[in-house]
Every structure is written in structure tokens, then in C-alpha cells.
């Protein structure tokens, strides 16, 4: 508040100075000796009741503390047993789970069917206020069949059910949860996970220790690091300094230009993630009175944008140009679709054909995207006569305008909750809901069928039809898949995953 200076403008200056200075500095010394992994996040984690939080930082910590019934092996794409030993669809709307015996919670309580029943039946109630209704609104009730067997009665067919049960719906100890509720779980998180929380200053510092009684056969077993210390350090330059001085072993979300400066001094790993950038076009905006309502205009805009150059310049790392309105890593994300190569001449011809040979002006709000990428899009479109009025807004303002049908184009990103299934992106934007400003009846029908079918072939076929049509009609300009740059101590082995859930239980020292 006391500052009069532009932070952004100073960042690069500071990094330059800091990195130059650091070349003269001391070599990195990881905290390998005390077998403690020192981690920093820039954002404050939310309280660790997984059902109430949205931020990745809190969810990462929670996944170390809690387990779900199932677990997804992202290397193979396979769903594997976790707290449930086996499971089966016993009817179109019922699933039964045989639970694992001999599992202990961090407070010493035994894991049984009561924990599953109490947890899930509580979090599906409206009063509980689970943050994302999509995660639990498909559950009608959970029944205890015996001490180690439960049945989930579904309220509607939902193809993403198994994905959700794979670690996104943690199981809490029933007695403690019934007595203390959400606030209790946040204050004293108790799970069955590979690490237990030993102390926390909410949002600031978390200390975890390996849980020695973690159950055998867990997909999260084999942790070799004794302690994990997580701190919030908002300023990235401070994180770089700590990483290079050896006080930190793991940081992430390093911007591409800065990761190249750090490379060589520490380990930098770039990994693709589920989140993708997109420009949504809204034929339905302003009651259809917008050039965007014309398919040829939409196609022209994509041809006019040099997405390859934008990715190279601003995203870097593992990011690639997308032709589909979903992440290629997601199930059902058909790749055999109409692709729009960079061709400004073709764009001009299409615009002329649509009656816009002299171009036009259009507002584009961008939110949660770097300004340079938005400016690059605007510069490319200016070459074909289209003037973009760029308007940077908070995501809440931008999406608010979009939902109010006031925006012809919105440049933002979507992370699909980190879930590798096309259902978690297409249905939101093309399924007929409030975010769907295309309102294509065919798409809504295909997507509903795909989202509710249990047959994977039926799902894949319907998503394929939808993705092809979205690309052909140029309803979206998919930009690129995001990547995350991790900065690691030179002594650390760590494997990143595309769902952005850091699995520190799999990390080890070299």
C-alpha cells in the first residue's frame, strides 16, 4: 500500500539482478541430511477439508493426508484400488465396494464402512456446502452392507463417477467427523494417507510427517521422505533465492522466461497439465448481433492468429498448440478434427466473403491469462483488419459478462478439475448450461448421452462427434495446453503429473 511503483515492470529487473548476483553465490544444499522436503507455494492453501476447497495448494496437501476409495494411476490411465479393494456396478445406478481391512487413521481409529457412509452421506447434503456440486451431486445415498462393504446409490447416471471416487472424495474418520464437522477436519485433518499433519498455521506453514502405519498395498505407499515442510512464500523471486540457497527443495509455477534463467543452477522440469487456454466465441452474445455469429468470421479469426508463435514466445516448455476444445490427455478428446493453420490471406478472404472486407471492431475480455498473449492475438487480428478492444478483468467479472451474453469473445483457461475426461470441459461450455453461448442442440444431445453412458465406446463416439463439430463450426479457438515449470533441488527426484497434484510421497533423494 505504501508503494508507488509498478511491480510487473520491476520484476524482470529484479530477477535479472538477482540471478546475476546469484551466479557468484553459494552452491545449493538440499535438506537431504535431515530427510525433510522443504516446499513453498505462492498462494495460501485453504483449510484442509477437501470438500470445501478449490485451490490446488490445499488439495495437494489434502491428498497426502487423506485417501479415497479408488486411485487413478496416471501413467497407465488405470483406476486402481485404494481404500476399496474391489468395486462393481451392480446396477445402472448402484456401485458396491469391498473395503480394505486393517487400515488405520492417523488418530489410531480403524477404517470401516461407517467412515465411508458418514463421510459421503454428510458431504452430499446441501447444508454441508460442498464447493463443487459436480463432485457429489451424482450420489443419492450410501448404505452400509456390512463392516467392510458399502453401496453407493447414484441419483443420476454419471460417467465421471469413478474418476471422482479416485482420490477426489476423501474418506474421513466417522466418529471424529460426526463430532467436529468441517471446521474440525480443517483444524485437525485426520486421514489414512501416507503423511500425517503434525502442525499447521493455516495458510502459512504446514508440517507433515510420514505415517508409519500407512496401509500395505496403498497406491501411495513407498514414501521415503520423513518430513515435509510447506510454507507460503508469495514472492517468486524470494522462492528462487531460497531454492538456490538450499532452504527450499521444491517450488512450482515458475514463469517460462524465468525458468530458463534458473536452469543450470537448479533442476527445472516442465510438464504438461490438464488446463488449456481458449478463446470462446459467442454466437449468442448480444442477441446474435455480432460478426462472431457468422461461422466464416470465426474461422477467419483462427486462421489469422499465429498460435504457434504465441506458444513458442509465451508458453514455452511442454505446451503445444491445440486444435480441439479439450486436452489431448483427456479421455474422449478426439484429435482428428478440422485444423486451422496460420494463414492471414485465407482469413482475409473469409472475412471478405462474410461481408467484412474492411474488418470490424470487437471487444475481447481476457482473464487469468498473461497480457502479452492477449496482445499477441490482438496484433495478429489487426493484420487482417479486425480490431480487438482488449479488456483485462478479474475472472469473476469476465465470466459474469460472458454469462450475461454481453461478450462476443472471452480469452481464459479451464482446468477440468485436473480430471482426464472430456466430460469435465465440453459439457460446461457446450452442454446447454449458463456458460454455453453456442446453444447448438446437436452438441447438447451428444454430450448428454456421452456424460451419462457407462459404455466407454458410446462415450468416445459421442465426444468425437461433438469435438469434430465444435472444431468445424469454429465455436472455440483452442490455444494451447498449459505446462507447469517446477524448480527442484539438484538432489531431488520428483515426477510431475498432468493433473497438477504433486505426489511428494513418490519423491526421493538422489
Amino acid at each position, binding site marked *: 500500500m505504501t508503494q508507488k511503483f509498478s511491480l510487473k515492470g520491476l520484476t524482470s529487473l529484479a530477477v535479472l539482478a538477482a540471478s546475476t548476483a546469484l551466479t*557468484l553465490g553459494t552452491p545449493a544444499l538440499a535438506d537431504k541430511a535431515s530427510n525433510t522436503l522443504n516446499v513453498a507455494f505462492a498462494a495460501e492453501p485453504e483449510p484442509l477439508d477437501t470438500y470445501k476447497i478449490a485451490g490446488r495448494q490445499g488439495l495437494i496437501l489434502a491428498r497426502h493426508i487423506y485417501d479415497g476409495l479408488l486411485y487413478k494411476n496416471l501413467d497407465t490411465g488405470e483406476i486402481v484400488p485404494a481404500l476399496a479393494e474391489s468395486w462393481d456396478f451392480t446396477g445402472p445406478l448402484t456401485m458396491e465396494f469391498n473395503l480394505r481391512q486393517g487400515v488405520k487413521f492417523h488418530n489410531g481409529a480403524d477404517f470401516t464402512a461407517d467412515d465411508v457412509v458418514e463421510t459421503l452421506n454428510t458431504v452430499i447434503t446441501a447444508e454441508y456446502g460442498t464447493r463443487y456440486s459436480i463432485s457429489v451431486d451424482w450420489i443419492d445415498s450410501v448404505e452400509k452392507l456390512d463392516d467392510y462393504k458399502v453401496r453407493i446409490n447414484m441419483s443420476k447416471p454419471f460417467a465421471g463417477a469413478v474418476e471422482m471416487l479416485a482420490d477426489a472424495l476423501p474418506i474421513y474418520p466417522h466418529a471424529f467427523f460426526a463430532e467436529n464437522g468441517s471446521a474440525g477436519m480443517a483444524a485437525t485433518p485426520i486421514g489414512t494417507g501416507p503423511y500425517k499433519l503434525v502442525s499447521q498455521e*493455516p495458510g502459512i506453514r504446514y508440517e507433515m510427517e510420514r505415517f508409519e502405519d500407512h496401509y500395505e498395498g496403498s497406491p501411495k505407499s513407498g514414501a521415503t521422505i520423513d518430513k515435509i515442510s510447506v510454507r507460503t512464500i508469495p514472492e517468486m523471486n524470494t522462492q528462487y533465492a531460497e531454492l538456490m540457497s538450499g532452504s527450499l527443495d521444491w517450488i512450482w509455477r515458475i514463469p517460462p522466461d524465468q525458468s530458463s534463467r534458473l536452469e543450470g543452477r537448479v533442476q527445472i522440469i516442465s510438464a504438461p497439465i490438464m488446463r488449456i487456454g481458449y478463446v470462446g466465441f459467442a454466437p449468442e452474445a448480444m442477441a446474435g448481433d455480432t460478426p462472431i455469429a457468422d461461422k466464416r468470421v470465426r474461422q477467419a479469426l483462427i486462421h489469422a492468429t499465429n498460435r504457434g508463435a504465441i506458444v513458442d514466445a509465451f508458453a514455452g516448455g511442454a505446451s503445444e498448440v491445440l486444435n480441439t476444445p479439450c486436452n489431448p490427455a483427456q479421455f474422449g478428446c478426439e484429435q482428428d478434427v478440422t485444423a486451422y493453420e496460420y494463414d492471414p490471406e485465407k482469413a482475409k478472404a473469409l472475412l471478405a466473403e462474410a461481408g467484412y472486407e474492411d474488418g470490424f471492431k470487437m471487444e475481447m475480455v481476457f482473464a487469468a491469462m498473461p497480457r502479452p498473449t492477449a496482445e499477441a492475438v490482438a496484433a495478429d487480428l489487426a493484420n487482417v483488419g479486425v480490431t480487438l478492444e482488449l479488456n483485462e478483468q478479474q475472472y469473476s467479472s469476465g465470466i459474469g459478462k460472458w454469462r450475461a451474453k454481453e461478450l462476443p469473445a472471452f480469452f481464459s483457461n479451464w482446468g477440468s478439475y485436473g480430471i482426464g475426461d472430456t466430460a469435465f470441459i465440453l459439457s460446461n461450455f457446450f452442454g446447454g448450461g449458463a456458460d454455453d453461448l453456442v446453444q447448438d442442440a446437436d452438441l447438447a444431445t451428444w454430450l448428454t448421452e456421452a456424460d451419462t453412458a457407462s459404455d466407454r465406446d458410446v462415450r468416445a463416439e459421442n465426444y468425437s462427434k461433438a469435438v469434430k463439430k465444435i472444431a468445424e463450426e469454429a465455436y472455440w479457438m483452442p490455444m494451447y495446453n498449459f505446462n507447469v515449470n517446477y524448480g527442484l533441488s539438484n538432489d531431488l527426484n520428483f515426477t510431475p503429473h498432468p493433473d497438477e497434484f504433486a505426489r511428494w510421497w513418490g519423491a526421493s533423494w538422489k
Partner: protein
Amino acid sequence: MLSFISKRLLVAFLVCLTVSALSFGLMFVSGDPAIAIAGAGGRAEDAEAIRVAYGFDRPLVVQYLDWIGSALTGDLGQSIYFNVPVTEIIGNRAGVTLTLGFISFLVALVIAVPLGVAAALRPNGWIDRLALVIAVSGQAIPSFWLGLMAIVVFGVWYGWVPISGADTWQGYILPVIVLSYYAIPELMRITRSGMIDVLATDYVRAAKAKGLPMHLVISRHALRNAVLPLVSLAAVQLGQLLSGSIVIESVFALNGLGRLAWESLLRSDLPVVQAIILILSLLYVVLTTLADILNAVLDPRLRGSS
């Protein structure tokens, strides 16, 4: 004097109310809080559920009156993000900011006032030139950059002090140096110019002429008058330092009120933002009121002009 103070307190109270109403309205102009809370991955249905759950669907006036009513009874509501009472969070974070702000203010004052006086005694002398260098660099060098340089040199190269966090008192060393360096120039300049003006007055010349030692001329005659504008400025400076420097708290990972305000604003944690705005406006009002009263004590002529 009593009527002077009561009038100032009444004005102060009205200012607080106005600021709180304005800030309350502005929060809603900046975007739909329900969407912000639902997050960038939230669907329209999630935002709608949040809108109802937190009462954002009620008229703005009702929401404001409801909040201010509770605030007057000491209930500042529940943080949406942290899911705990706002007073608890602010209580946890205030200590860091108050410590940082007060110490930085004292350090700045202890350096700025003597330096300003010394500079005024010998204009264009070496102390005055040194003061000028400090003033110019303090205002020109961004504290963000200075903070990072301090981290690199004293934290990374030499390893003398912790780079971030306030786990020990050493964690405050670098932030205090940087923050006070930022506050020194204005305090010093106003001391210097005030002293130069006062030293040129007839009564100071008379005091010198009658043979009073210089230190008595300064402390008894000159400084008391030169300090009047300094008191007003110091109140504002202290307010700024106590309201928490977002930049300094971010660079040094100090989890104080400044950062809490900034982060809460970004995540639309309305109860926290509203509480911080109210507390900070109260703080400014109290400090400026105290400064006015102090000035009135120092200079009786000001009491009449109220």
C-alpha cells in the same frame, strides 16, 4: 480543548462510516463475488449456490446494514476462504504488521529527524549532501528491488539473516531496514525544511544573539516549531507503515495484514476485506486525529482555528 477533541472525533466517526460504505459498494463493482469464490473452475450452478448460501442475492443496502450492524457489536463475520471468524484471522496477522510497522517507523524517525536537523544547520555541507543522497535514493529505489537485493546479499551470499518468514526476530531485520529506508526521505525533508525556516526567524536569531548554547536554541526554540508539520506527516507515515506494506510482506513472506488484504481482495473474501478496510480507516482516522490534537497541544494558536 474538549470541544476541539469531540468535534474531531465526530468527524472521524463519519469518515469511517463513509469509507466503509464506499468500500462495501466498490467490492461488488469489481465483479461477482459468488463467481470469484466458486473459482476459475466453478460452473454457473456452483456460483448460484454460493450466491444464495452467502446472501449475495439480497439487496446491497440490506447486506451493508447487516454487516455494519454486526461489526458494531464486534462481530466481523466469518472468512469465506478460511472458514474461521475474521477477528481470529486478523488477530493472527496483526502482530506481524504492527511489529514491522512500529519498528520501521521508530527506526525511520530516529534516523530522519537528527539527520534533517543536522542538514538544516549546515545547508550544502557534507551532512546535507549525504541526506540528499539518502532522500533521493530512498524515493527512487523501489523497495521491492531493494528488498530482493538485500535478500541476495545478506540472505544468500552471506547467510547472515533469514530470507523469509518471521519465525525469529532476525526475520524482521531486512524488512525493517527496507521499509524504514522508504519512510526516511519524507520525514527528513520536512524536518530539514521546517528547521531551515525556523532558524531564519527573528526569535531564533535573538536566542542566538543573547548567547544561548546552540543545542538549547535547537531543542527549546527551533525544533518545537519546526516539528509541527512533521507530526502530521508522521501520523500518515505511521498509518501507511501499520496498514502493512503489501510489497514488503510479500517479498519477505511475512504474513501480515497488508498481504491478507491483498489476497482477500483477489479471492473475494468479502468479510475479511470489509473488516480490514474498516480497521485501517479507523486507524488512519485515529492517527490523524491524534496528530491534530498533538499539534494543538504544541501550538495553542491551532486550537482556535479548529
